[in-house]
């Protein structure tokens, strides 16, 4: 077999070394009645046939290199320079385990340290961890962290937050009897927080792409003894005020925007940053700088006493495997882009989105719902069902936006479409969408 190198002769020789005669002897402790049951699996394919079959399956899907796509809502078709993939596919990176032996893992450890720093620079926060599964689960963990810090059991979340984030938050909170209240996170509301409130969560830009003015919010939240959690899109932070500048206590982001392919939803990477004072309550791995016995600068995993392998049931989280390789790709992406490139991506997304909104607003029967300014997506009311529009657009090699008709995030309004444009949706694509919609009127 291609991945089991021992030859028949070697297997026999090895069995003999340990005084056994056949492979079945290795299973002697297993009750006979559970051994070798029927298992129905497809016939094996050799590598050439396998590759052909997988290519065939992949081509049953409409992909963003062949379709113009206007979907956002938590997964974005941003550009990733070729250098990023080439870096993440270095054998030493992708076939490594968690860097528990630092002498053999300086490459990944230093990269984690760089990632942590980059997340801090982007968010304006003090410390960041090595990654979480995704933004949604990170949000769940953040709420629990806030509850633990404040010893309170109520979470206030802004209603126009991604519905799946809210759903995951609910699952996590539920385990600890934490109550979730959906309430707009503006200053007025924040001035009336009840004393049970552990934290206030606000997504910026929100689910409808709207950019909210969060100035002053933290003061109110802190006055109520609660913690402010801002859920951000990392690309937007190239231009928008950062969670740190807003004095957030915890900042959570979905790192997928940072050059990670959409991959039908994963693997992505949860970004998690907080204030220095909360570092020991934070979930997830941390790399720290130190020295080796010769005084040479080096890196190790540190503050591990927060983690499950040391603290077991007392750990800050049960997370073990995280999204290290995705974080590596995001690190490489951020380095390639730099501050200027990141701003360019943000500006192009912003302009493309408004270009599209400005054109669609003029189409009969369409009405923009999102309040300006929005960042890279906006909600629009449509004359016919967005699902139907999407169906027809596919024929134009266009993947339309998300049908959010009747959802809570738009107060149950019918025929609402969430459209997204990034730097990859250039003028040609935007015009093509508008023309197609015109043709459907």
């Amino acid at each position: 077999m291609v991945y089991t190198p021992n030859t028949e002769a070697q297997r026999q020789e090895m069995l003999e070394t340990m005084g056994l005669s056949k492979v079945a002897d290795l299973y002697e402790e297993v009750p006979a009645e559970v051994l070798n049951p029927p298992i129905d699996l497809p016939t094996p394919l050799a590598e050439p046939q396998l590759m052909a079959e997988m290519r065939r399956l992949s081509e049953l899907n409409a992909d963003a290199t062949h379709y113009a796509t206007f979907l956002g809502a938590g997964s974005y078709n941003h550009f990733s320079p070729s250098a990023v993939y080439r870096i993440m596919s270095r054998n030493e990176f992708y076939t490594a385990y968690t860097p528990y032996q630092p002498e053999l893992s300086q490459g990944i450890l230093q990269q984690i340290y760089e990632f942590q720093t980059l997340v801090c620079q982007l968010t304006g926060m003090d410390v960041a961890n090595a990654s979480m599964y995704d933004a949604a689960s990170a949000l769940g963990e953040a709420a629990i962290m806030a509850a633990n810090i404040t010893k309170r059991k109520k979470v206030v979340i802004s209603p126009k937050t991604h519905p799946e984030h809210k759903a995951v938050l609910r699952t996590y909170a539920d385990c600890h009897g934490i109550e979730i209240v959906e309430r707009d996170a503006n200053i007025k509301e924040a001035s009336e927080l009840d004393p049970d409130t552990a934290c206030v969560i606000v997504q910026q830009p929100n689910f409808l792409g709207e950019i909210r003015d969060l100035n002053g919010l933290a003061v109110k939240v802190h006055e109520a003894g609660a913690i402010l959690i801002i859920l951000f899109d990392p690309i937007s932070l190239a231009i928008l005020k950062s969670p740190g500048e807003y004095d957030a206590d915890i900042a959570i982001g979905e790192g997928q925007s940072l050059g990670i392919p959409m991959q039908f939803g994963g693997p992505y990477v949860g970004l998690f940053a907080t204030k220095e004072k909360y570092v020991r309550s934070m979930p997830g791995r941390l790399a720290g700088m130190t020295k080796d016995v010769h005084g040479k600068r080096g890196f190790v995993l540190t503050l591990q006493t927060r983690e499950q392998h040391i603290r077991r049931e007392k750990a800050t989280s049960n997370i073990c495997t995280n999204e290290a390789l995705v974080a590596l790709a995001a690190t490489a992406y951020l380095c390639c882009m730099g501050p200027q490139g990141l701003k360019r991506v943000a500006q192009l997304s912003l302009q493309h989105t408004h270009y599209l909104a400005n054109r669609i607003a003029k189409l009969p029967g369409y009405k923009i719902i999102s309040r300006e300014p929005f960042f890279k997506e906006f909600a629009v009311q449509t004359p016919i069902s967005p699902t139907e529009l999407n169906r027809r657009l596919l024929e134009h090699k266009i993947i339309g936006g998300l049908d959010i008709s009747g959802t809570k995030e738009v107060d149950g309004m019918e025929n609402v479409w969430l459209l997204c444009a990034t730097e990859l949706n250039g003028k040609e694509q935007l015009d093509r969408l508008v023309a197609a919609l015109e043709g459907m009127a």
Partner: protein
Amino acid sequence: MSVEPLIFELSSPGRIGFSLPAVDMDEAPEMDPALLREELDMPEVSEVDVTRHFVRLSQKNYGIDIGFYPLGSCTMKYNPKVHEDVAILPGFAHIHPYQPVGCVQGALQVMHELQGMLGQIVGMDAVTLQPAAGAHGEFTGILMIRAYHRARGDANRDTLLVPDSAHGTNPATAAAAGFKLISLKSGADGSVDLEALKGVLSDRVAGMMLTVPSTLGLFEPNILEISRLVHEAGGLMYGDGANLNALVGHIRPGDLGFDVMHINLHKTFTTPHGGGGPGSGPVACKSHLAKFLPGPLVEKGEEGYKFVEPEASVGRVKNFWGNFGMHVRAYTYIRHLGLPGLQRVSEDAILNANYIRANLTGTYHLPYNRICMHEVVLSGKNIKQETGCRTLDIAKRLIDHGMHPPTVYFPLIVEEALMIEPTETESKETLDQFIAAMKAVAAEARTDPDMLHAAPVTTEYGRLDEVTAAREPNLRWRRPVPVEPDDLEYVEQAG
């Protein structure tokens, strides 16, 4: 090799490393400066800098593609290269999770068939692919157990049983899911102590989390009896499937009495560990738990594949449909190997571990003298007693012999534990080299213990100071504050 600068130290103001079009429109409204950030201090480097930096860093890292990596409980097996080529096909890499299902039928087929194949392999009725890793799967499964009891009005079951040999994520998950915990002491042979188990079973027990084979690398000979006892007491059996590599193709956890379990695709199904992730932790369950699975699942309908929501779902644990990129790789692997290939995986994983056991027993203490499964746990306590060298020293010295050390000090119940999982992708030649190295280190411990204390000495880095790292954590780089002439003046005046 010299110290690699931090990427921040390579930055030069104004340097760029991207190639993007210019902004050629002015459509957005002007924004209130109160919404905008002031500065963005990030590294400014070229693509050349970035490539070199990370290529050089990569060379400071060990991976399976460099050599043997026998971390116990981690199943560090070879990652087939064809998986990577499959995963980057545009039809898998560049599809959005919210595309209309009609235009992602290939992706849904992969997910649907993977659900089915995993169900077959573990002997369970339903599978969700949503959890992102093993621990996330545990969390999901435990929520399902709670939902099951709640749905039956059996609301008092607030306790989970976890053997003391369990992986740290088990107790951590129990706590994260809001359960109380009873830790079960293992018996003298490493197995669950049936009497102790009986002693703690009650109507407060929601279930038991059990790893088979255990983290001691041992099959649980009384597994059928354990399951019977737990079930009899009204509890459910949660299976930690991290060690499925030992069973795959020959033994189905479903047949052992487990009601629900997770599977680590990044272990048994060889999706790359990537320096700590991503993983993927599908959860499989028997039919009586199926309606509690997190949604959505993929079903095959009249008009093709579609998403469906289980009727009493515990809710979402993750955005979208899970780590699809890992599903694709695991699916590719199963279709490549088929049942005969998977059986061979289990056989050679066990054979390799036992070969190491047979050859190192005597040199190292073997705490449980039984045939092992996919891994063998040895103890360095004999060496420690005799020479003062700890298992940590042994591990570090192994590095000098050109090998990645096994997992050390876990499971916690074995003194000076050395947990060795060779996996089936290693050849006898490699095992022989490892065995020779382990023997050489044991001999060195006797003749020159200081050499072990000082190890590693052949690497670029010597032992790193973890104590200071934890005491005075330096978790991020900060721009050195430029010394202003004024400051200097001040210093001079003060000095």
